[in-house]
C-alpha cells in the first residue's frame, strides 16, 4: 500500500481549509489516498466528496478532538468530473456546437444534481465570477441539462415545503406566460387606449409578481439558510443575486402598471417590453434551476427533522396570495 499523504487543517479558518483540502483532493491520482485531519466532524466535506462518486471515504479517527478522514481515489471510475468541467469550459467560451452539447448530454445522464452543484462551486473556487456563472453556466444547464435533470428529479408530495415551492413555481410560470403574450401584443400597439383590457391585465400580472416576493423570502430565509449551514453556499448565493435583479425589475413594472398614464406611451411601452421580456426569460430559468438543482440538493442533504422545522418556519413567514390553500395547512 502506498504511504498516504496527510493534510492537517486544524486551527485554520474556512477559506484556508478549503484552500488546502480541495487542491489536495484534486491532485489525487488513481489508487492514492489522502488523510485529512480536522478538529471537528467534517460532515459537509464528506457530502461534497461523496457526491463525486470516484472517491472512497472513510473515517480513520472520529473525535472527540480530532477527526481523520481517508479519501481514496478509485481507479475504475472514469474521471467524470474532469470531462464535465472541460465540457462546461468549452460551452462557456462560446456558442456550443451540437456535438459538444450532445457529449454533455450523454455525460450528464450519469450525473446527479448534487454533483452538479459541487461542480458549480468548484468553478467559482477556480475564479470564475458569479456573474459569469450566472450568464453562462446556468444557461448551459438549461440548454443542455434540461431533460436529464428533469428525469433525475425527486418528487415529493404535500405538505412538503419543496412541494409547496414547486407548486408556487407552476403558478408563477403561468403568470410569466401571460406576461410574455401581453408583451407580444403590446409590441404592435401605439396608444394606451389600444391596450384595452391589457392595461388591467398588466397590473394583475405585476401584482402577482410582487406577491411572489414572499416565495423568495421563504427560500432565502428558510431553505437557503439551511443549505448554507451545511456549507452549500454558492448555489444559494447565485439564486439570491437573481432575486435582487428580479426585485428591481418587478418594482419598476409594478409602478408602471399601477400608474401607466403618468408616462408617455412610447416610453411606457419600451420599458414594459424590456422588463417583461427579461422577467419572462430569466425568472423562468431561475425557477428551472431551483426545481432541478437547488431543491434537489436540498432533498438529498436535509433530513426529515430539518424539513419539519423548515415547514414550521415557512408557515410563520406566511405564503403568497396565490399559494394553494392545501399547501398552507
Amino acid at each position, binding site marked *: 500500500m502506498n504511504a498516504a499523504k496527510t493534510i492537517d487543517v486544524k486551527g485554520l479558518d474556512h477559506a484556508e481549509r478549503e484552500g488546502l483540502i480541495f487542491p489536495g483532493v484534486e491532485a489525487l491520482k488513481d489508487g492514492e489516498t489522502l488523510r485529512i485531519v480536522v478538529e471537528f466532524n467534517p460532515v459537509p466535506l464528506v457530502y461534497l466528496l461523496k457526491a463525486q462518486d470516484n472517491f472512497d471515504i472513510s473515517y480513520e479517527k472520529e473525535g472527540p478532538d480530532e477527526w481523520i478522514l481517508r479519501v481514496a481515489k478509485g481507479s475504475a471510475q472514469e474521471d467524470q468530473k474532469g470531462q464535465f468541467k472541460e465540457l462546461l469550459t468549452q460551452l462557456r467560451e462560446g456558442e456550443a456546437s451540437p456535438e459538444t452539447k450532445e457529449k454533455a448530454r450523454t455525460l450528464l445522464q450519469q450525473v446527479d444534481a448534487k454533483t452538479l452543484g459541487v461542480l458549480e462551486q468548484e468553478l467559482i473556487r477556480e475564479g470564475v465570477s458569479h456573474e459569469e456563472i450566472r450568464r453562462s453556466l446556468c444557461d448551459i444547464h438549461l440548454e443542455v441539462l434540461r431533460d436529464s435533470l428533469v428525469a433525475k428529479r425527486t418528487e415529493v408530495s404535500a405538505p412538503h415545503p419543496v412541494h409547496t415551492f414547486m407548486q408556487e413555481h407552476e403558478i408563477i410560470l403561468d403568470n410569466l406566460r401571460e406576461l410574455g403574450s401581453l408583451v407580444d401584443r403590446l409590441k404592435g400597439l401605439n396608444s394606451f387606449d389600444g391596450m384595452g383590457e391589457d392595461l388591467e391585465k398588466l397590473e394583475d400580472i405585476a401584482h402577482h409578481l410582487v406577491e411572489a416576493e414572499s416565495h423568495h423570502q421563504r427560500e432565502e430565509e428558510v431553505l437557503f439558510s439551511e443549505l448554507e449551514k451545511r456549507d452549500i453556499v454558492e448555489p444559494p448565493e447565485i439564486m439570491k443575486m437573481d432575486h435582487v435583479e428580479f426585485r428591481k425589475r418587478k*418594482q419598476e413594472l409594478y409602478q408602471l*402598471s399601477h400608474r401607466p398614464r403618468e408616462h408617455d406611451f412610447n416610453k411606457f411601452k419600451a420599458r414594459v417590453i424590456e422588463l417583461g421580456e427579461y422577467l419572462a426569460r430569466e425568472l423562468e430559468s431561475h425557477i428551472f434551476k431551483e426545481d432541478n438543482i437547488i431543491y434537489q440538493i436540498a432533498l438529498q442533504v436535509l433530513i426529515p427533522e430539518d424539513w419539519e422545522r423548515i415547514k414550521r418556519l415557512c408557515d410563520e413567514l406566511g405564503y403568497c396570495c396565490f399559494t394553494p390553500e392545501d399547501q398552507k395547512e
Partner: protein
Amino acid sequence: MNDIFRNTLKRVKPIRFREPLAETLGALKEEGALDYNFIDVVKMSGHACPTVSAAYLCCQTALEKLYGDTIPVRGEIAVTVYGEPDEGVYGVMAQVFSFLTGAAAATGFKGLGHRFKRKDLLRFHLEKVDPEAMCFEFRRLDNGKAVLVRFYPQRIPFPEEKAKQLSHLLQPVLWEAATEEETKQFQGLWMEKVEHMLLKREGTERWLQLEERRGQNERS
C-alpha cells in the same frame, strides 16, 4: 424642537414613572416623576401600529392595576413574556415593555453596587398560558404583586371593509407604486385603527384582559 407627529398621537395618556436611577445620578434638576408618552414609544419603535399600541396599552393597564394611585417605579418591575424573542411580534412588544418599565433582557444594566440592576428583569418564557392570547406578566419587585395580561390581537375591532382596503393598498405602498391619494388613504386607515385603540378605549376589555396573580414572594 421640531414637532411633526400627528396631533392625535400626542393626545394619548402618558405613563408616569419615578426613575430612581436618574434621581441618584443627577439627571433630574429636581425631584419629580417622568412622563413617558406614546410619542416616545413611537420614536423608539420607529412607527405606530396596532402591535406597538397594544404593547403600550398592556403596560399601562397592568401598571394601573399594580400601582393604583401611586406612581410606578422604573427598574422595580419584572416582565415575563410568554413567547420566544423571535416568535411573531413578541420581541417587538417586549421592546416596548423594556423601554417603558426599564426591565431589560440579558443586555441590560448590571447595576451599581446592590441597586439599579435592570438586566434579566425581562424574560421570555417558552410555555404558553393561553393558546389564543399573547400573555405577559408584570410583577412588582417591591411587594411581589403581579398581573397577567392576555392580549387577543384578532379581537381588536376593525370593520372588514376597511381591513380589506388596507391589505389592498399594502403592496402599492410597499413597492412605492401608490398614488398620493392611495398613500393618504392607506395612512388614514392605518392610523384610524391605532387611534381607535389608543384614544377611544371602548370595548378594550374584549381584546385586553387582566387578572391578578398570586406571587410566590408576595407581601401585603
